[in-house]
């Protein structure tokens, strides 16, 4: 798997869908990453164990893939670190105010045809495209 093709994109997407499906069946919750992670930060959350193990699996699965395949290990940082910090803050704020991220709204919500998730996904993809456009014009 040295050279990346769109088959990698489709295959990876299928794995993401399968992982989400299995986590939904086991937890009885919509396993969006921002919600799984965000609720770990709340002391009163009763079901922390599966959340922690799911994220641990995610980190482990990715780390192993980086070791196994060159195309998976490709990493091109695009922004200075100060911008990454600001981006992280906004992603944390926005995903919890809006109730989901690319996985909770984008994969699970769109997959089951939830209108709120379809709206959220259209908004965050659209706003992100405009943000990239402005950043590239203004900064680069």
């Amino acid at each position, binding site marked *: 798997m040295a050279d990346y093709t769109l088959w990698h994109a489709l295959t990876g997407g299928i794995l993401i869908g399968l992982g989400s499906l299995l986590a939904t069946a086991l937890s009885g919750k919509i396993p969006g990453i921002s919600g799984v992670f965000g609720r770990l930060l709340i002391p009163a959350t009763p079901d922390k164990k599966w959340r922690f193990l799911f994220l641990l699996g995610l980190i482990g699965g*990715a780390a192993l893939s980086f070791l196994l395949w060159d195309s998976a290990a490709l990493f091109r940082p695009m922004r200075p670190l100060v911008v990454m910090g600001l981006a992280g803050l906004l992603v944390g704020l926005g995903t919890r105010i809006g109730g989901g991220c690319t996985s909770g709204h984008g994969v699970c919500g769109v997959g089951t045809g939830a209108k709120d998730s379809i709206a959220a996904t259209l908004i965050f993809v659209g706003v992100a495209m405009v943000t990239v456009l402005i950043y590239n014009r203004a900064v680069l």
Partner: protein
Amino acid sequence: MKAGRFFLIFLAGALFGTGLAVSGMTDPGRVIGFLDIFGSWDPALLFVMAGAVGVYGLGMLILRRFQNQNLKLPSTASSPIDRQLIIGAAIFGVGWGLGGFCPGPALANLGTLRIEALLFVPAMAIGMLLAQRFFGADQGR
């Protein structure tokens, strides 16, 4: 939850993380390449979403038929499209476009101790805590 279930939930996470890495979504360059529609556009993210949405949607349709006391599925009914949803999604969009990281890929890069992830994830946690403290996020369930 029994021990076997906990192993399976770890496996679910591993499938997810492997999918993120194999699909190239852990690379901010590829994500921003998709978002940069006026640059040299990279369609990969669209194929990732198609695969994930297709499998999840179809899988949920099938799982619904087997629902019983051992298999409880969450409600997938839509919440109202209100101000919170719109403003939150827009703020997330700005952050996603700025960094090229959404929560999954940022966490996925923690294992290899990428400095970008080591900075992004704590900042994200602070943003989430602020959303929970001051904007009433995550109060239900």
